[in-house]
């Protein structure tokens, strides 16, 4: 079966694998009814909470990182240095917040009568789907991008394969390339299983409870809602769901901040670059394209639409995330996986720009173990010729070196201007005739005024000429 044949049947395969008719949400023009799609499964927030509770998911501790906050405050002006809180999501079933998402996908798969589920993921979501499928008595196949053409596997992804197998799943391990999607479609077609997509409404509504818990926990502990919540951003579902949960709890003024590891310069489909990176998710290679074009995902309309909620996008380098992972262990007694600490590294830098009475919440941690451990990743990088240096982390060149901050004072972030992201999103509609309803949709998609959209579209179309 040729690549193109299978890709041409994509819509039909997808429809059978989700039993969700996306056509019903489409507007005339470019938009669709996002809220109608999110509500279509008929789950309330309480339903989600109950389904997760039954599966030993959610209600994770929120911990004030007093020593880490004090360390950050040391480098801030007097009166500055926010209090950093951490939601210890590693304590969920399967060791990450991804269990919240998997719980809803699996619940829906079971409800619709599927015999099994398939998910395309190299990350924690695979272990989560496998664990939840095991609990539901469903078959499970996880499709991973795992090896380069020399057969060298990324240690973090190998560990995820092991975890999936521990929960009884079949793990299909593929070499580098977007044709993963082709193999994924073939498997859906062959088995008739449910597509446990990260981007379906179920995959995103499962995270709303995380935002909801954060709002309630912080209110209980401090008498107010947090000033900011930082979400590690890749596919966008984490940020989207968390923001929706915060809003549902009433925390409408809390700033929603995205954090990604800066992997600028590495190509995500490159066989050579694949094993030169120390982070396989939560990085700019996913975070930027999925923010600026959410419908690139494995469903017709992605439920993960981060620009609807995002107030700021901060980047940290790989060396800084390893540094903060070490700090979390030796200052707070919490040994956690490095990828989950991306937003913590940003919090450390960002806290210094906020008042010392402000509260900043880092909304996840993940489990650590062989392969997905700081030392495993750094030693793997050094074996592949990546130079390990001490200095200014903002000078790191992904694929060439890892620069660790020579002091906590040196751990700083970069910012991607929101306008750049929004313009990049709008470029997909270059030279298209847009009507009032399209502008209304775009203003919701990008959390800005119709006037701004019109100005930006004019600028985009002007540049083209």
């Amino acid at each position, binding site marked *: 079966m*040729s*690549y193109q044949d299978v890709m041409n049947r994509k819509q039909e395969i997808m429809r059978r694998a989700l039993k969700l008719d996306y056509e019903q949400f489409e507007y005339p023009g470019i938009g669709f009814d996002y809220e109608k799609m999110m509500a279509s499964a008929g789950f309330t927030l309480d339903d989600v909470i109950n389904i997760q509770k039954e599966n030993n998911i959610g209600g994770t501790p929120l911990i004030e990182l007093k020593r880490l906050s*004090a*360390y950050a405050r*040391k480098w801030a002006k007097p009166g500055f240095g926010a209090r950093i809180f951490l939601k210890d999501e590693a304590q969920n079933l399967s060791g990450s917040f991804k269990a919240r998402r998997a719980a809803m996908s699996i619940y829906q798969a079971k409800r619709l009568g599927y015999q099994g589920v398939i998910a395309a993921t190299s990350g924690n979501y695979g272990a989560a789907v496998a664990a939840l499928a095991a609990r539901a008595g469903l*078959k*499970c*196949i996880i499709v991973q991008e*795992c*090896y380069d*053409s020399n*057969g060298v*596997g990324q*240690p973090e992804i*190998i*560990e995820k*394969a*092991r975890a999936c*197998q521990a929960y*009884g*799943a*079949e*793990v*299909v*391990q*593929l*070499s*580098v*390339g*977007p*044709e993963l999607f*082709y*193999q994924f479609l073939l498997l859906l077609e062959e088995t008739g299983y449910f597509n446990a997509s990260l981007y379906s409404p179920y995959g995103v509504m499962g995270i709303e409870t995380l935002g909801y818990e954060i709002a309630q926990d912080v209110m209980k502990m401090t008498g107010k809602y947090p000033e900011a919540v930082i979400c590690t951003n890749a596919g966008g579902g984490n940020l989207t769901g968390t923001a929706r949960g915060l809003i549902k709890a009433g925390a409408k003024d809390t700033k929603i901040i995205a954090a990604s590891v800066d992997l600028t310069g590495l*190509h995500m*489909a*490159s*066989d*050579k670059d694949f094993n030169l990176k120390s982070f396989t998710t939560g990085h700019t290679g996913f975070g930027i394209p999925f923010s600026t074009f959410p419908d690139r995902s494995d469903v017709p309309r992605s439920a993960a639409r981060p620009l609807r909620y995002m107030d700021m996008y901060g980047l940290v380098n790989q060396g800084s995330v*390893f*540094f903060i992972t*070490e*700090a979390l262990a*030796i*200052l707070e007694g919490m040994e956690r996986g490095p990828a989950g600490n991306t937003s913590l590294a940003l919090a450390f830098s960002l806290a210094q720009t906020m008042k010392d009475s402000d509260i900043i919440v880092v909304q996840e941690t993940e489990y650590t173990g*062989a*392969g997905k*451990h*700081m*030392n*495993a*990743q*750094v*030693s*793997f990088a050094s074996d592949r010729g990546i130079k*390990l240096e*001490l200095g200014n982390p903002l000078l790191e060149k992904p694929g060439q070196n890892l620069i*660790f*901050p020579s*002091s*906590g004072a040196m751990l700083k972030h970069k910012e991607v201007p929101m306008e750049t992201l929004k313009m990049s999103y709008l470029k997909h509609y270059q030279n298209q005739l847009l009507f009032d309803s399209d502008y209304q949709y775009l203003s919701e998609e990008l959390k800005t005024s119709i006037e701004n959209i019109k100005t930006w579209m004019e600028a985009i179309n002007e540049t083209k000429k």
Partner: protein
Amino acid sequence: MIDPMTYVEIYRMILPPEERSSNLPIETKRVPFEMRLRGQLLKEASIGDMVEIVTASKRIERGILVSVNPFFSHNFGHYVPMMTTIRNIIIKETEDLS
């Protein structure tokens, strides 16, 4: 010969370079798209044979038999002096914190 129902790993080329997606970096485009999969061998065979296995989800898959009793050997990596360096920086800079 390897006995039926032995736990094995198979390899299969899914797409040769010329059938891969058109929009790929050159280093990816010139190598095949490959799969590795573990399961139990259906019929007696030797390494290098084209075989069938039954997977954990009870599917039958075909591929070249590449390893017998495959296991995971990923670990915590070797000692990296830089890890001690950053640890010492953090300890030194936080000595004065309560």
